[in-house]
C-alpha cells in the first residue's frame, strides 16, 4: 500500500500547539457529512467550516480542493448523471454575534467550482430527476426543523442547468389534506397532452401531488387516494411510469389496489391551470401487494404484482383491468425483471422474498403468461431463507444473504443458469456496494481491516487487507474501476483500490486532505 500523507497535518498540529489566544474557529468541528462519490472525485462536506473538500482521484496524485458552501450544510448527495455533488445548506437563523444566512443549494464540481441557488426555507430533503436537471428541496418529515415555525408543505424546485434567477428556484406550497410530503419521485420525460414534459410526483399521506416541471407556474394537481371518511393509512410507496401511455402506476401501503393515473388532455380552466388531468383507476392486486413491475408493450401493458398477503403473483391487464393469478410455492415480496441481456426487453421475472419469508425463488416466463399461468412458473429452492438481496440484472446475478447465526452466508444466483452458488461470508450484505461497471461487489465488514469482494464474472471471492477498518466503501467513476474504502479520522482518510487489480499492493492510502487550507485560513 502506498500512503499519501498531506503535509498540512503536521503544520496544523504545530499551529495548534503554539496558540496562546485561541481563535474560536479552532474549536469548530472537523466532522463531515457522509462522503459522496461523483465521477472520479470524493466530496467531503464539513458543515462547521461551510466548505466541501473535493478529492479528485482522476489524476495520478489525488488533487485536493476546498470549495465554499452556504452556512449549515445538512445534506450531500451525488448529482444524478453528473460528476457533481449537491449540497443542501439550511442557512443560519442568527444569534448573538452571528448574522442570519439564507438556506442554499450548491452544485460542486470535481474541479472545485460551485454554483449556488438561494432557497427561502431551511429544507432538509432533496430529490432529483433521473437526468439530474431538476432538484426539488422539501422538508424531511422526520428531520428536526430547528425553526420556530415552518411550513412542511413548502418546496423549492431548482433547475440545475440554469443559473439562479428570479424564477429559479420556484418556491411554492403544495396543497395539503393534512399530510406532508414524504417522498418525491420524478418521471422520465414523457408526452402528456401532446407536450413532452417531466412530472414530479410528491407522495404524501393518502394523496399525491403532480407538479409539471415544464410549467412550474401552473397549479399542481392533487389526487386523493382515499375518501375523507376512510381511516386507512394509505401511504404511497412505489411509483412506476408508463411513458408510452402517459400513465402513472402507484402502489401504496395498506391498500390492496394499485392506483392508475392516466394523464388525459383537458381544456385548461385558466392560464395557470394544467392542460391534463389524471383519470384515476384502481386495479385489484391481491392482498398487501409489495412490489410491482411493468411488462408487455405499450398497446398491451401489463403490471406484474407480488402480494405476500395472498401468497401469489398477479398479472394485471391494464386495458381490460383483469388479473391472472399465479399461486406461488414460495412467498415473494420483490420482483426483478430481466432479459437476454442488459438492453433486451425483459422476458423473465424473478420473484423473491426477503426478510426471512422464503427460502426459494420463482422464475416466471413473461411470454404468454396470462394463458399459460403456472406453466410459466419455475421454483428454485435455495435451502436457506433469504435475508437481503442485491440484484444485478445487467450481470444476470442476484446476491442473496442468508441469516445464519452471527455470521452471514451468501448465495449468488445465476439468472441465466438458474443456479445458486453458496458463498460463506463473515460479513453481512448491509454495506455491500458494486463498483462503477457493476462487475464486482464490495463489502466493508464493520470493524474489520479488510475489504471483501466477489468478482461477478467468475463468482470468485477475495479480500484486500487495509490499514484500518473501513466505515464504508464507495464506487468511483471515471475510466478506472476503482473503489474507495473510507476510514474514520478527522483528517480525512480513504484507501483507493483498483478494481481490476484488487490487491493490497495496488492500493493507495490517501490521508490528511481535510486539513487542506486550514493553515492558510488561520494565518489570515
Amino acid at each position: 500500500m502506498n500512503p499519501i500523507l498531506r503535509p498540512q497535518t503536521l503544520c496544523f498540529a504545530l499551529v495548534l500547539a503554539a496558540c496562546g489566544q485561541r481563535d474560536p474557529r479552532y474549536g469548530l468541528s472537523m466532522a463531515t457529512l457522509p462522503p459522496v462519490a461523483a465521477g472520479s472525485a470524493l466530496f467531503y462536506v464539513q458543515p462547521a467550516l461551510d466548505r466541501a473538500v473535493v478529492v479528485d482521484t482522476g489524476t495520478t496524485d489525488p488533487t485536493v480542493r476546498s470549495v465554499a458552501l452556504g452556512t449549515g450544510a445538512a445534506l450531500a448527495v451525488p448529482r444524478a448523471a453528473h460528476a457533481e455533488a449537491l449540497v443542501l445548506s439550511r442557512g443560519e437563523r442568527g444569534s448573538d454575534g452571528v448574522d442570519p444566512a439564507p438556506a442554499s443549494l450548491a452544485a460542486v464540481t470535481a474541479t472545485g467550482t460551485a454554483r449556488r441557488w438561494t432557497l427561502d426555507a431551511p429544507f432538509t430533503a432533496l430529490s432529483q430527476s433521473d437526468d439530474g436537471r431538476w432538484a426539488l428541496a422539501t422538508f424531511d418529515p422526520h428531520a428536526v426543523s430547528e425553526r420556530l415555525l415552518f411550513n412542511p408543505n413548502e418546496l423549492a424546485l431548482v433547475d440545475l442547468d440554469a443559473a439562479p434567477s428570479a424564477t429559479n428556484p420556484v418556491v411554492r406550497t403544495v396543497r395539503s389534506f393534512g399530510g406532508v410530503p414524504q417522498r418525491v419521485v420524478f418521471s422520465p420525460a414523457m408526452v402528456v397532452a401532446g407536450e413532452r414534459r417531466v412530472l414530479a410526483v410528491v407522495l404524501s399521506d393518502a394523496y399525491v401531488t403532480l407538479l409539471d416541471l415544464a410549467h412550474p407556474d401552473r397549479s399542481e394537481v392533487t389526487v386523493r387516494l382515499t375518501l375523507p371518511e376512510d381511516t386507512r393509512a394509505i401511504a404511497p410507496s412505489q411509483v412506476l411510469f408508463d411513458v408510452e401511455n402517459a400513465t402513472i402506476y402507484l402502489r401504496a401501503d395498506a391498500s390492496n389496489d394499485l392506483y392508475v393515473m392516466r394523464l388525459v388532455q383537458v381544456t385548461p380552466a385558466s392560464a395557470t391551470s394544467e392542460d391534463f388531468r389524471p383519470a384515476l383507476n384502481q386495479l385489484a392486486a391481491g392482498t398487501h401487494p409489495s412490489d410491482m413491475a411493468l411488462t408487455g408493450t405499450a398497446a398491451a401493458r401489463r403490471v406484474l404484482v407480488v402480494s405476500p398477503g395472498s401468497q401469489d403473483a398477479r398479472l394485471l391487464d391494464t386495458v381490460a383491468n383483469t388479473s391472472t393469478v399465479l399461486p406461488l410455492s414460495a412467498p415473494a415480496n420483490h420482483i426483478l425483471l430481466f432479459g437476454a441481456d442488459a438492453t433486451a426487453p425483459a422476458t423473465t421475472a424473478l420473484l423473491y422474498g426477503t426478510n426471512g419469508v422464503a427460502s426459494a425463488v420463482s422464475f416466471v416466463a413473461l411470454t404468454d403468461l396470462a394463458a399459460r399461468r403456472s406453466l410459466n412458473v419455475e421454483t428454485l429452492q435455495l435451502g436457506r431463507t433469504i435475508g437481503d438481496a442485491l440484484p444485478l440484472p445487467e450481470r444476470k446475478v442476484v446476491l442473496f444473504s442468508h441469516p445464519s447465526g452471527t455470521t452471514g452466508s451468501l448465495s449468488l444466483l445465476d439468472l441465466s443458469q438458474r443456479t445458486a452458488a453458496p458463498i460463506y461470508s463473515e460479513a453481512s450484505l448491509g454495506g455491500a456496494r458494486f463498483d462503477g461497471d457493476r462487475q464486482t461487489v464490495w463489502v466493508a465488514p464493520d470493524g474489520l481491516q479488510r475489504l471483501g469482494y466477489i468478482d461477478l464474472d467468475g463468482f470468485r471471492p477475495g479480500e484486500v487487507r487495509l490499514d484500518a477498518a473501513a466505515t464504508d466503501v464507495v464506487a468511483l467513476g471515471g475510466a478506472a474501476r476503482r473503489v474507495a474504502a473510507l476510514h474514520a479520522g478527522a483528517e480525512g482518510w480513504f484507501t483507493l483500490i483498483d478494481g481490476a487489480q484488487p490487491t493490497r499492493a495496488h492500493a493507495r492510502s490517501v490521508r490528511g486532505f481535510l486539513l487542506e487550507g486550514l493553515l492558510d485560513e488561520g494565518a489570515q
Partner: protein
Amino acid sequence: MKAYTLTLPLVFAAALDACGSASNDSLAGPRFDTDAGTQPRADVGSTGGAGFADGGLPRETGETRSFQTPQGGARHVYVANPARDHVEVIDAETLAISSVEAGDGPTYLATVPNTDTALVLDVNAPTLALLQTTATGTTSRSFDVVDGANAIAIAPDAQHAVVFLDTAQPNQGVPAGSFQEISVLDLRPGHESSLALSVGFRPTGVTFSGDGATGYVVTEDGVTILDFAALTGPRLVPTVSFRDDAVTADDAGVDGGAPHISRDATVADVAVTRDGHLALARVDGTSLLRAVDLRTRVAQTVDLGSEVTDLDVAPDGSFAVAALRSASRVVRIPLPDGLGDAAMRTVISLPGEVTGSVTLSPDGARALVYSSVAATDHATLLDLAGTTAPSLLHLRKPVRAVAFAPDGRTALVVHRHADGDAHAPGLDLATQIDRSPGYSLLDCASRFSVLALTDTEVGPFMLVPDGSSAFVLLRDDARNIARAQRVSLANFTVRDVLLGSPPVSVGAVSLSHRVFIGQDHPEGRITFVDWSTGTQQSVTGFELNSRIVE
C-alpha cells in the same frame, strides 16, 4: 309477466310490472320471481284445509329492486353518491367519469330505459334531480317532490314519472305528514314540472298503461288513476277500491250469495292490464280474486275454489294465471270474459305437484309453476300458447326463484339448498348436491336443463336484454370469493368473471351491450363486461376521480 313482487305486511302486495310497462326495471337489479304464498285465513272464502297438499307451508319472501345501486342508461351508468351530493356518471364505452351535483344527499336513483336520463331522489331535502347526459356532458335540474320519497316509477314513454314514499322499502324514516302524497313529474322537454297529488293510503307501487298515458298507483285503498293529460294543476284524482265498501244488511250476517270479502282482507299481486281497463288482485289467504273495471269502477269477485297463492297477468293483458297451491292446480283466466264465466277458464291440474307460484314468460306463451318453499325439486313448464302438455321438470334441487330470458326461450332457476357443509368429508354425491347452492338453466323448447352448483350463495343475477346470456353474482367475503358467472344461454356454458372486490349488483347498459357489476369497494368499483365477448374492464375510484383538485 312480473319482474318482481312486493310482499307487504299489511294490505297490498303489488306486481309493479304486471303489464310489462313499468318504469325502468327491465335492465337493472335482480330479477326474482317467487311464490307469494300466504298463511291460511279462516274468515274469507275457501281456505286450505284437510287433504290439501301444502298445508302449513310458510309464506314465501319476495325480492325487490334497489334504487340505491348503480343504474344503467343507454350508454352511461349512474352512481348516486349521497356523501358528496353528487352523482357519478360513467361512460360504459370509454370509462370516462364525470360528476354532477344532484341536490342534498342523492340516494335513490332510476334511469329511463334506453336513454341516458336519470332521476335521483335526495334524502336530505324533498327534491329530485333530473340528469340528462349528452355528448357535451350531464345536466342537472332540480324539482320539488314529496317529502321522504324513496321510490321512482317512470312511464314507458318516458314522458312522466311518479315518485312516492314506499314505506316497505328502505327509507330515511317516515316523515311527519301524509302517507298519501305523491309527486308526478312531467318530463316532456319544455314542460318539465312537478305536481303534488293525493292518492290512496300508503302507495306501494306504480304501473302504467302500455302507451304511458295513464299511471296506476297501487295503494292500500285501491288503485289511484293518473290521467297524465288531465293533470294540469292541483286536483283530486280518483281511487278505485278493491273492497266492497257498501254498508248493507249483509254485514249483520245475511249472506246475499256472492262471496264476501272481509273489510280486513288484504289483496296482493295487484296488476293492471296493458290497456288500463282492468285491475286484478288476489285476496290474500283466500280462494278469491277481485277485479275492478277501472273505467266503470265496477268490481267483481271470482272464487276459484282453493286458495290462490299467486297471480300473474299476461303482458298483453289477455289472460291471467292463478296458482292454487293447495289444489295442485293452475287456472288460466281469459280477460275479461273468464272472470264472469267459469266455463271459459282452463284448469290445469298437476297432481302431486306444489303449485305455489307461477311465472309467465315475457311473451306470455309459457309459464313455470313451482314452489319456493316446498321441499320439492320439481317444477312444471306450461305451454300457454300451444297444445303441448305440461312438462314436469326434474331440477334436482328445490326452487328459490325463477327468471325467464327476455326472449322467453330460456329460464334461469335459482335453487335453495340444505343446511350443512357441502364439502364435509364422507358425504355422498346426493348430499353434496343437496347442500350446495346453485342454479339451473332451462331450455324451454327442449325442456333440457343444466344444474350449475356454486361454492357460495347465488346472489343477484340478470339476463341480458337480448337473451344471449345471464350473469350471476357470487360473493363470500370470508372465503375471498368475489366473482360473477357469465352464462351463455345459447349452450349453457358457464365462465367465471373474476372481480377485484365483492359484487353487490348487476345491471346492463343496453346500447353498449355491456353488463355492469357494482362492487363493494371503499372508493367505488364497477366492472363492465361485454355480454357477447366476455371482455371486461373495471373502473375503480370513480368517487376519488371527482375529488381530484387543481
